[in-house]
């Protein structure tokens, strides 16, 4: 087990390094010049070239990559020989000259909204997805099952932005049940926070729960046919215990995989939901940075998101062994 973890962590680090390199090469193809953002209106070509040199943007890609990696561990100072050098402490994910802020600080500022959005939706969709899935499996073939599966089909066929826009139209504009979304921290104004987050949570939860209903139903149907379920029932265990302790636990592994990866993906920012409900999260930061051609921020968000996904992959694999004792990690 520990040898497995060590091996997985090493391959995870290699994957992350590779990923950073690929992101660097991809973005070095972009024609936008980050140095351009450092020099204002009265910009002369000489100043531009000097700035580019100071920022290390005239170096080959691989060397820029090296500087970036070094910055991650020991910090980095931009424009050392200029009158106003920019210090970016370790771990330095880069510096946005457009916004005049360290990328890490920008990401940290936007992370809470994204985390709240992801966690709330996650809890909702897991609860709804798993319970409806079990319910459908237990009523398989009957109208309850068909209804749940119909809802699930509708859920995963609805594009997120259409669902979000409809929610805004009906609930906020027509029925005026909720005020226009405007994000505040839950510690500052919990009521406004819930009023803002309720719709995005529900919209995301509907989209994701659809898949989990199906997955749970199929898993339960498969597991309920196993011999040990019959044994458990024959022993006279109450049906609730049979379902919860015997069936659900055995069928849980694919659900955990999907849940871990989906949550990690969402932590990287739900681009569409955030932009529709104007939530100040990573997703909307990403879209704004794309529009501003703010390269360091895009690279930073890409790496943070990819890290979430890769780490989630590892955690999910380790959880397998905890949930299902039949799984042996070698």
């Amino acid at each position, binding site marked *: 087990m520990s040898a497995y973890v060590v091996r997985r962590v090493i391959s995870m680090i290699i*994957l992350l390094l590779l*990923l950073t390199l690929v992101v660097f090469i991809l973005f070095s193809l972009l024609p936008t010049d980050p140095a351009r953002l450092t020099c204002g209106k009265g910009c002369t070509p000489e100043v531009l070239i000097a700035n580019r040199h100071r920022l290390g943007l005239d170096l080959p890609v691989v060397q820029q990559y090296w500087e970036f990696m070094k910055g991650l561990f020991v910090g980095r100072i931009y424009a050392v020989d200029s009158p106003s050098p920019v210090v970016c402490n370790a771990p330095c994910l880069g510096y946005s000259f457009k916004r005049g802020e360290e990328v890490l600080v920008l990401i940290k500022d936007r992370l809470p909204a994204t985390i709240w959005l992801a966690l709330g939706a996650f809890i909702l969709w897991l609860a709804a997805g798993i319970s409806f899935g079990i319910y459908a499996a237990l009523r398989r073939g009957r109208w309850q099952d068909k209804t749940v599966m119909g809802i699930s089909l509708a859920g995963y066929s609805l*594009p997120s*932005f259409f669902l979000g826009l409809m929610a805004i139209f009906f609930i906020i504009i027509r029925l005026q049940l909720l005020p226009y979304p405007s994000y505040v921290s839950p510690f500052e104004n919990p009521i406004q926070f819930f009023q803002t987050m309720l719709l995005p949570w529900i919209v995301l939860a509907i989209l994701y729960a659809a898949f989990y209903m199906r997955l749970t139903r199929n898993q339960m149907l498969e597991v309920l046919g196993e011999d040990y379920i019959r044994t458990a029932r024959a022993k006279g265990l109450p049906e609730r215990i049979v379902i919860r302790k015997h069936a659900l636990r055995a069928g849980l592994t694919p659900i955990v995989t999907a849940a871990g990866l989906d949550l990690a993906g969402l932590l990287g920012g739900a681009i569409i939901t955030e*932009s529709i409900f104007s939530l100040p999260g990573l997703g909307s930061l*990403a879209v704004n940075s794309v529009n501003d051609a703010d390269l360091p921020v895009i690279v930073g*968000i*890409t790496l943070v998101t990819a890290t979430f996904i890769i780490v989630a992959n590892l955690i999910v694999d380790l959880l397998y062994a905890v949930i299902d004792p039949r799984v042996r990690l070698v």
Partner: protein
Amino acid sequence: MTKKLAVTDTPAALADVEFASRSLRQIVWTRLRRDKLAMVCLIILMGLYLTAIFAPVICGLLGVDPYSFDKESISDSGGGPVGTWGGISTEHPLGVEWGTGRDIFAQLLYGLRISLLIATTATILTVFFGTVLGIISGYAGGKTDAVIGRTMDLILAFPFLLIILAMSGVLTQRLTDLGVPDGNPSRILYLIIVLSIFGWPYLARIVRGQVLSVREREFVEASIAMGASRYRILFKEILPNLWAPILVYATLTLPTYVGTEAALSFLGVGVLPPDTSFGGMLGNSVSYFSVVPSYLFIPGTVLVILVVTFNLVGDAVRDALDPRAGRV
């Protein structure tokens, strides 16, 4: 079978029975034909594809086109459509666009064209690359498998929506440099390429897993012993055993691509005006839908119908291919 079999039939009686062997295609088709919902969906889909193909003809018959401005149908102050429901009239069956008076119905048909073109081509490419690379990876094993496997891990770890957004400008430019006509052709090609690049690993994983078990079967061994070429073993011996998962994957990927394309157009990566697609129309509706809700509901509804029918067909194909189906 020409005669019904009974348990009591003796081997001699069995010899008289003619067994008609059925190919996978026949089995799937017979099962699909029995599925009424699937047949209705297939007909709707065929209708949508025909509508997309003949969009110019249909628009010509109705006397509308998506490009011409109609200043008569919008108000002089503000540019909102004249009349109720976004300016629905005999001239403009589904209303007109804010500010320009372009016909919504014609835009919808041309949008359908672009959405289906992108999603269908991207699905074909995804299936092609996913299948080929999956088979090679599963059969070759060793270093080849490791290289393809790590590449897949790498691609799957990317936040693909963000990358597609960020790279759209430069890669579209590259395509133009390579000789693809400027503007929408290169933007469409870009979407097709990126959807395929981020899509193939999922299928390749499934195919690889299947190949791992198929390659151990006797008939593969037999053809190796007979000196069959590697190409023959991979694509004539192994591939026919994989059609079921590939077909299911393809039918369920197409609707996802329709949705993703719409999402990307919504975020501004898709085709540029005067052309349009569902996502673009929905994106434009954001500024006006509190006043003219039909801008939101018309393209949204068509998009949902398209995705739902594709998903239903996909589910039906999966049921038809599942050997355990019918037992539940």
